[in-house]
């Protein structure tokens, strides 16, 4: 392999690969290598496109059979072959939103703690601890949720609340449910613990991008930490923060294993805070292996397409707001 010490390249651009040299051997291979890399990148595009196309094709019979009703009906009746996505969609959106509600304040608190308040010697271990929380596989969350969290939740939260509700009152109506700790609320709490580290890590990186002078000037004027955070730091990273939140939401929407264990697997609209429900992901995981060809299978695939569209929309929004700095 001869390295041609031929004429230097013409104009070198400031970024990326330089313009190919004029040696015939080199340029042929250059082109080949570029095509190889290009194909790899396009392969990713094709894979994503393939997912969407196969979901659309597979789910088409369901859309055709039920039309718009598919999105608003919560009937899930395999005997009569009537399927509606509304129950699963509601479960998905409710559990993800509740998870976000619980996780948001906590992750902001953690991020601010790590940036402003943490003693330097603790910074590395606590940061690592938060990352470890992010690394735990979702099936472990599911098992922990079902075997450790659910009984605790049932005993110390659900039972006292349910027992204290007098029969016939409104309070009773919204707290009925199965007293074993499984349900939408429990699933939301487990999801919150799962997305907590993602949002915290992203927020922390965002806060670290604030120039030191900005914060120092605020402190120099006599502000308390609370005031600096509220009036200076958060507004500075507001756009990115919203993007981080959307990323966390996107993750919570698609989570399967942690939710399937503990959500109770009941179709239909949830009617109480302890109700069982189902999400799109848990419905597919439970029923796909045995859904017979025809409307049942098509409805599940159609559900998958709906989930993809929701997640795609959330991610697109996050991308718009956060730019490309942060890792998912």
């Amino acid at each position, binding site marked *: 392999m001869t390295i041609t010490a031929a004429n230097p390249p013409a104009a070198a651009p400031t970024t990326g690969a330089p313009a190919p040299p004029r040696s015939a051997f080199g340029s042929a291979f250059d082109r080949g290598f570029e095509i190889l890399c290009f194909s790899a990148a396009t392969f990713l595009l094709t894979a994503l496109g393939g997912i969407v196309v196969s979901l659309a094709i597979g789910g088409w019979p369901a859309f055709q059979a039920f039309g718009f009703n598919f999105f608003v009906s919560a*009937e*899930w*009746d*395999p*005997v*009569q072959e009537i399927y509606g996505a509304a129950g699963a969609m509601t479960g998905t959106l409710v559990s993800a939103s509740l998870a976000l509600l619980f996780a948001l304040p906590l992750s902001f608190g953690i991020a601010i703690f790590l940036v402003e308040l943490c003693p330097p010697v603790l910074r590395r271990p606590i940061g690592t601890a938060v990352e470890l929380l992010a690394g735990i596989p979702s099936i472990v969350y599911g098992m922990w949720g*079902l075997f450790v969290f*659910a*009984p605790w939740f*049932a005993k110390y939260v659900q039972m006292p609340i*349910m027992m204290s509700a007098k029969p016939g009152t409104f309070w009773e109506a919204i707290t009925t449910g*199965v*007293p*074993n700790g*499984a349900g939408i609320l429990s699933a939301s709490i487990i999801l919150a613990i799962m997305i907590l580290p993602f949002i915290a890590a992203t927020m922390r990186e965002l806060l670290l991008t604030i120039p030191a002078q900005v914060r120092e000037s605020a402190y120099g004027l006599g502000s308390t930490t609370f005031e600096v955070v509220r009036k200076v730091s958060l507004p500075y990273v507001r756009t990115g923060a919203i993007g981080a939140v959307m990323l966390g939401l996107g993750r919570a929407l698609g989570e399967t294993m942690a939710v*399937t264990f503990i959500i*109770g*697997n*009941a*179709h239909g609209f949830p009617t109480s805070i302890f109700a*069982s429900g189902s999400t799109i992901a848990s419905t597919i995981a*439970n*029923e796909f*292996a*045995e*859904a*017979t*060809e025809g409307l049942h*299978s098509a409805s599940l695939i159609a559900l998958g397409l709906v989930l993809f569209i929701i997640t795609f929309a959330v991610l697109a929004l996050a991308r718009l707001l956060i730019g490309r700095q942060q890792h998912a």
Partner: protein
Amino acid sequence: MYRKIILSLAACLALSACGQKTDKKGDAAPAAAGAQISGAGASFPAPLYAKWAEAQKAETGMALNYQAIGSGGGIKQIKAKTVAFGASDKPLKGEELDADGLAQFPTVIGGVVPIVNLPDIQPGQLKLTGPVLADIFLGKVKKWNDAPIAALNAGVKLPNLPITVVHRSDGSGTSFLFTSYLTAAAPQWASVGASDAVKWPAGQGGKGNDGVSGYVKQTPGAIGYVEYAYAKQNGLPHASLQNAAGKFVNPTAESFSAAAAGADWEKNPGFATLLINQPGEGAWPITGATFILMHKAQADAATGKAVLGFFDRAYATGDAAASELAYVPLPADLKAKVRASWSAIVGPDGKPVYIPAAQ
């Protein structure tokens, strides 16, 4: 460092390549050591099939990999030909079998039992009838000490716990048997119907017989329905049911046999006979056989031979394992009829893939 990583990757690849080579050699000798057959379906007989598979692997070296994905799954996957055989507690009717060219035969008989999680209640102590069970699963009876249950169980201290209904979240032959019983025994269940996946009016869904027993075990005041082996192996107390003759019976091998006693197996194609609510003093009302589905025209004769050989051996020597797990082995004459029916399963050359040795 990179060298080590590349070397270990290469080693793993070599390992999988070796695995491929030995399996190819294994295929040349049908059902020889190293061959692998896949089946999927009902969780009803899963513990028994796993035991049989373990025993036969030790004997013949053939690995029969059975995955419990629900009866609905077994039917779907065998129709899609992704497995060598499917298993279902819900027998397919003749028309459906012919439409897909499937053969069907039973392997064991078992019973579906209601299980409860109530403190201080002994197995069989709680008495229930079909209509009361239907009302519980419809969500009409909400507490354990409500009148309909208390009326049947005078003298039993029923706690003031809310009833948690646990049903199947996946397509299940166990559900099919259970809902068939409720349809037969309680007119109010007609609105829900009998199928492997129904629109349950109340309760939570568990995945597989495992999932239901797991949920019931964890929830005080829960009631579910599982195949009897699951109740027995997990120490979950069952309820006794009133059968067609009006007697309260417990699920035992004897009561399952009593239910199977009068059945006419040849009446329906594919041995599709339900044993729900059978007459007989000691008959358990929710009894059923579990079935195997195979294609009549096997694409690979060796696979078909391996599957039938497995079940032939299971018929011959697997009865003890079945009884241990509280399944009822098929009566000998039914086994003979099933073996005779295997001549319909042919290979690409049109000849039967498996000829059972004379018994």
